[in-house]
């Protein structure tokens, strides 16, 4: 919760006002019975009509005051809680933007999403519900105690018994209910997981005719959920009845004590006093109930806050150098010098001792099995990761010596997963270069073989792209991602398996169009298809993180067994 308190500091003024307005509300609520007891004890016995109206007028004024205070409290608490949510969310989001791939891997993207979206709103809801209560309950308690004791310290003694009694009961119920509700959460997750699986596997389930098996499986967890939920509901439903019993017992106790003390100890009580004390005691106990409510909700909110804190406290492992040394006149050179890379926590390096040098106009291709480290190699170029040994040099300068913006401006990167963002086709291409002219965008789109389908879309370049680009096919997304990289006019092109969703024909014409564009640039292609990379100047064959061979197609056919095996599986004899 520390992070939350830190954010609350910005709202000291509002918080003080909340205390004041809540105090107002409380005084108004407590004042009414006080005034009523005045009516009962003084006005009615004395038949003092003037006093009735005076006290009545005062009561009404008090109610209006209470209303005003309540509304203001609501405004302030909404501002504070939503404001804290806003700034936490913004801090979290900005932090994540500058994370390196390593931190993203550490948390996983989906967990970061939950932390930014759900956890923060959890904190927000908690604050909004509890801010008022957290302030009001102690105030009510204190006011109640002061008033009760000032009316009669003897009668107030009941509290010494009732409050602990109530606390014990509530804690006992919470002890049972809290673990149950955690259990319920996992069970509902399980139900929803199975539902999701059934939805994605609808064809398979029917093809295997396992409907009965599936129904039974679901029935089991459904039954299980019902059982646990019944238990939970029946436990939490105990709260109200038990509280009513405790409260009524307390009231009865007060009245009994009053009678007893008046009879046996000669104490002098008016009936109005007794009634008022009962009401104060009720108020105090209500305050205690409200406080328990806060404590019931607190663990959830504080877990959420802690999850957010974890993110805020992790520092990106890849940072900008303090004194960038990125002066170079070279363009389009890429060098790997004895590069090794080990993922944090892994036993074996993902890449071992890789060296090569690429000059402008050259194409370097990387081929090999999945999970063999191909993507890892290209991820080192824009510093998505830093190599653990050796050096990656761009234009003769170590990538770690570059200002990151400068380095990345040199690179046109097409990731394996072609991600588009919500917006338009234009805005997605411009993501590559925000100052790109219309002509340049069109050019890039043409090179990426996307012009035809873009023009077919309603609105052409301003056609909407939905979140994640789901309204484009896989092949279209890939081509737009290529256009986004091309529009930058980079010195180094990186294609991480970026042609896989294209058919052979498109693949071929795209590469032809690209070859003109990339005349002065270095191209690095990761691929699975031999036909995509056959003409590369240099093919690097990766097997289990090690370089199994390097050379041209013809050279490798003679020297590299792994390469030969790959070729044989893909091409017919005459094509080799």
């Amino acid at each position, binding site marked *: 919760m520390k992070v939350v308190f830190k954010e609350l500091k910005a709202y000291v003024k509002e918080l003080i006002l909340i205390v004041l307005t809540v105090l107002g509300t409380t005084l108004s609520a407590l004042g009414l019975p006080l005034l009523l007891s005045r009516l009962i004890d003084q006005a009615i016995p004395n038949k003092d009509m003037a006093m009735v109206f005076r006290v009545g007028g005062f009561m009404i004024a008090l109610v209006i005051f209470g209303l005003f205070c309540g509304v203001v409290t609501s405004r302030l608490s909404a501002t504070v809680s939503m404001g804290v949510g806003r700034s936490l969310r913004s801090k979290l989001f900005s932090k994540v933007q500058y994370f390196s791939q390593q931190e993203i891997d550490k948390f996983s993207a989906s967990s970061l999403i939950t932390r930014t979206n759900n956890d923060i709103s959890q904190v927000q809801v908690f604050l909004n519900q509890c801010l008022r209560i957290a302030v009001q309950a102690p105030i009510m308690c204190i006011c109640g105690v002061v008033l009760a004791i000032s009316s009669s310290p003897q009668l107030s003694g009941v509290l010494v018994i009732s409050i602990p009694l109530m606390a014990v009961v509530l804690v006992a119920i919470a002890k049972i209910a809290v673990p149950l509700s955690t259990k319920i959460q996992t069970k509902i997750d399980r139900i929803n997981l199975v539902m999701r699986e059934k939805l994605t596997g609808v064809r398979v389930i029917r093809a295997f005719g396992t409907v009965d098996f599936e*129904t039974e499986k679901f029935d089991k967890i459904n039954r299980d959920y019902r059982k646990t939920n019944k238990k939970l509901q029946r436990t939490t439903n105990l709260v109200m009845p038990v509280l009513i019993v405790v409260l009524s017992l307390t009231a009865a106790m007060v*009245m009994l004590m009053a009678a007893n003390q008046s009879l046996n100890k000669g104490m002098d009580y008016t009936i109005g006093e007794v009634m008022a004390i009962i009401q104060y005691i009720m108020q105090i106990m209500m305050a205690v109930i409200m406080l328990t409510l806060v404590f019931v909700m607190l663990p959830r909110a504080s877990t959420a806050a802690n999850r957010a804190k974890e993110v805020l406290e992790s520092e990106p492992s890849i940072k900008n150098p303090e004194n960038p040394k990125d002066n170079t006149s070279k363009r389009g050179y890429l060098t790997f010098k004895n590069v090794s890379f080990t993922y944090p926590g892994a036993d074996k390096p993902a890449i071992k001792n890789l060296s090569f040098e690429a000059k402008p106009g050259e194409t370097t291709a990387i081929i090999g099995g999945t999970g063999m480290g191909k993507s890892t190699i290209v991820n080192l170029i824009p510093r998505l990761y830093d190599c653990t040994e050796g050096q990656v040099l761009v234009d003769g300068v170590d990538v770690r010596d570059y200002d990151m913006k400068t380095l990345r401006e040199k690179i046109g*990167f097409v990731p394996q997963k072609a991600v588009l963002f919500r917006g338009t086709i234009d805005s997605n291409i411009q993501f590559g270069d925000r100052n790109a002219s219309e002509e340049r965008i069109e050019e890039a789109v043409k090179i990426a073989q996307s012009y035809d389908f873009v023009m077919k879309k309603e609105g052409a370049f301003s056609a909407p792209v939905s979140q994640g680009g789901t309204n484009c096919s896989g092949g279209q997304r890939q081509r737009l991602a290529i256009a986004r990289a091309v529009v930058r006019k980079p010195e180094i092109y990186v294609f991480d398996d970026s042609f*896989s969703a294209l058919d052979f024909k498109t693949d071929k014409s795209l590469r032809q169009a690209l070859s003109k564009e990339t005349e002065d640039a270095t191209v690095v292609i990761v691929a699975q298809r031999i036909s995509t990379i056959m003409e590369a100047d240099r093919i690097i064959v990766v097997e289990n993180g090690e370089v199994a061979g390097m050379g041209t197609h013809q050279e490798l056919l003679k020297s590299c067994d792994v390469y030969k095996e790959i070729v044989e599986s893909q091409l017919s004899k005459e094509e080799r």
Partner: protein
Amino acid sequence: MKKFKKSSKNNAYKRLFSYMKPYRGKLILAIILIMLANFAYALAPLFMGNATNFLALVLENGRAAQAGADFIKFLVLMGLAYGINSLFSYIGTCLIVGVTENTIYDLRKKVDQKLSKLPLNYYDTNSYGDILSRITNDVDTVSSSLQQSIYQILNAFFTIVIIFIIMLNISGLLTFVGIAVIPVALLIASKIAKKSKVQFDNQQKKTGELNGYVEEYYSGHNVVTVFGREDTVIENFEKTNDDLFEASKDGQFLAGTLMPIMQNTTNLGYALVCVVGAIIAISGGLSIGMIQSFTLYLRQFSQPITQVMQITNVIQATGSAAARIFEFLDEKEEVKDTENPKFPEKLKGEVEFEHIKFGYLPHQTLIHDLHIKIGAGEKTAIVGPTGAGKTTLINLIMRFYDVKGGAIRIDGVDIRDMERSRLREIFGMVLQDTWLYNGTIMENIRYGKLNASDEEVIEAAKKARADAFIRTLPGGYNFVLQEGASNIAQGQRQLLTIARAMLSSPPILILDEATSSVDTRTEVMIQEAMSEMMKGKTSFVIAHRLSTIKDAENILYMQDGDILEVGNHESLMAKDGLYAKLYNSQFAD
């Protein structure tokens, strides 16, 4: 439009109640108990008022023995009333919990069963997210609110009725004074509720936008990084975040005023009652105790109203969620199996397409006239450019969709004359979209034949070339796959689905060859496993590989959803048509 929505919601409540019918005995008992509990609760202040009156006597003139005894009597009665109230209302809520949990259980079961009865067409034409949200979120919403709202409504109803009667009994005038402010409060509150609903919807919308934005840019984090656009992304985020702040601040503020308004109008009634009560008391019309209990009643009277006001949003949400669930449950189901199902006497694996006509939409015809007979044990390759609708044929053979004209026969029997479950047992299917579920590898392979022994499963895995990699996993066959089997590689997933199909050893196979997302060595293994499986069996293969196509007895060339050319490799090359063109373009590098 709005009117329609409302009626569908009302309908939803009605139908939700109809789900409780099997438990109406319990429900009625619960209602009676809650009524009694409320009655006891309502009597309590009356006893307390009496106790107060006698206490006043005791306090005033010391040893009034009779007053003391009466005081104790009423005190005990009060305790009893509260005790009965607590006991009965607890039993009542427990009964309601039972009823609602059973109802939700039934509802979930219905939804689950519906999933298996809907035609494939439904899944193909509705968005995954929409269906998912109906069968998970909407059911959750109903589930979490049903019990709470039923109890609160019942409770509120009885409290209001009973207390109203009692208050009238004490004093008609005071009742009028005390209640007069409530309609005003309600009016203001409902105005605010309406406004806050608009704000709330707005907040929901903005939350959705923001969540979408976060999801999008976190998933695409590497793109943002490599293009160095962090600052633009943050800038846009701040805008959405500010919008959300404004919307939620206003929404929460308005919603937050509901409580103080209701409370203070009640307090206003309270103050008025005090004044008027005092006047009546001065003129001797009412005892002090009566005023005391009347004010307590007034508080109790307004409490349920405030509560119901607070849960109206919940009730609304329940209604819309239920309406969406019922919409799902009302979807048209698959055509029923025939009354007198037939089945080929001896399964050989001969498949005959007789003048097939088909289209997914009512007035659309994709396949115009497919006529081909595939002999037992033959291999049929389906080829064509991406997006040509190659899965359509599979949809038809397995009767996920029904043909619009002509007939498909297996060993002479029309597939529409067979039971679906038996028809589908004939096929083994390995698709690129490898569906595996959260469970152990053993369980997942066994899915092909639910009564297979462990040895049979391992045997199938060996044949599918999957055994080796399974043994390298921690726990081997007991390795638990995550949802979507995301903790193993794509190629490995495919090997598992092959093992699963192997285990079921069906006479006809439907295979989708691996493409680029799998590395070449795994690909070779998949290839080998598939050829092993295909030996001597009729097979349909969505082909990407020359070797597969060349030795297939039949090739179906598909484009734009229709089957345009039929033949084998030689005859189609000789024809020099679309197939020849595709073949040449793909490999003439």
